[in-house]
């Protein structure tokens, strides 16, 4: 349990990486790291795809990164309000994140290559998610 609080709509309560939400609530973006080979996973995975083991530890990320690409969508599925911007960024630890860009980011300010920061965001009803802000 725990993961039911994640995002606008969560389709699952059970996941082996539910602690991710606990870290978000503590203001932290966390990745999992394989204790054997050191590979970092974000979004966090419970198992290492190289070592085929589940001996992982939680590692806080700086959240700092660079925007690789983005799109602003003018049609929205459930839980999204159009228009919204989706972004792909590379964090300085080397992992990538695909998520929403903060609504505070103005369209003419968003630029490929710009510095971004991944931060936890509290939603209504004690729900929580994360998004990218331009810094």
């Amino acid at each position, binding site marked *: 349990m725990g993961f039911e609080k994640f995002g606008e709509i969560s389709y699952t309560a059970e996941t082996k990486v539910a602690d991710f939400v606990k870290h978000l609530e503590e203001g932290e973006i966390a990745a999992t790291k394989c204790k054997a080979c050191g590979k970092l996973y*974000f*979004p966090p995975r419970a198992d290492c795809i190289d070592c085929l083991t589940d001996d992982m530890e939680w590692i806080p990320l700086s959240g700092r990164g660079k925007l*690789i*690409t983005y*799109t*602003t*969508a*003018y*049609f929205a599925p459930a839980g999204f309000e159009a228009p919204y911007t*989706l972004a*792909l960024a590379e964090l300085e630890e080397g*992992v*990538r*994140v*695909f998520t929403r860009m903060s609504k505070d980011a103005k369209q003419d300010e968003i630029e490929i290559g710009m510095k971004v920061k991944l931060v936890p965001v509290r939603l209504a009803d004690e729900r929580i998610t994360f998004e990218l802000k331009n810094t």
Partner: protein
Amino acid sequence: MYQKETTVEKVMDSKVVASPLKVFDCCANADGASCIILANEDLAKKISDTPVWITGLGLASAPLSLTSRKTVSSLSCAVEAGKQAYKMAGLKANDVDVAEVHDCFTIAEIMAYEDLGFCKRGEGGRLVDNKETYIGGKIPVNVDGGLLSKGHPIGATGGSQIRTIVLQLRGEAGKTQVGNAETGLVHNIGGIGLYGAVMTFGR
């Protein structure tokens, strides 16, 4: 769906769906059906005077998550499927006379040119500018209008692409006939580039 001739202005003035793609950059959902008759060599020769042969097959998958992909300007499943099909058929990209590629969006067609080796990386757009993908060009692509023109009935699209290539290799494509096409290629993508299938055909 969009079979009437249009202008660049009209396309650029259409509503944005997901920037920078606009309505006319996106293929329309459609209903449709397609059918392919497959037979072994003996039977094919018996039931048809003009059988078209599958010379190469390639199928590959890729990570679902965009964060697990090395690039967003290429579909690795298409590159791998293309390599497999070319190898099986003993062909190179420049041996292909006519091709059908999965242009679910305008940019997807340009990525397909590059993934299949019709041009170098980053030069896909120029291939269109120079009319090399037109009938009479170096590598005519989607001469039937592609998904953008026909619409995209998901399950039927691949079969429809094969139909186009079969007609081309038989010389039965009428107004859209590409000279004396001997080698054809079909490129089809599933999901958000999760799986790619490439087939080559000969006569």
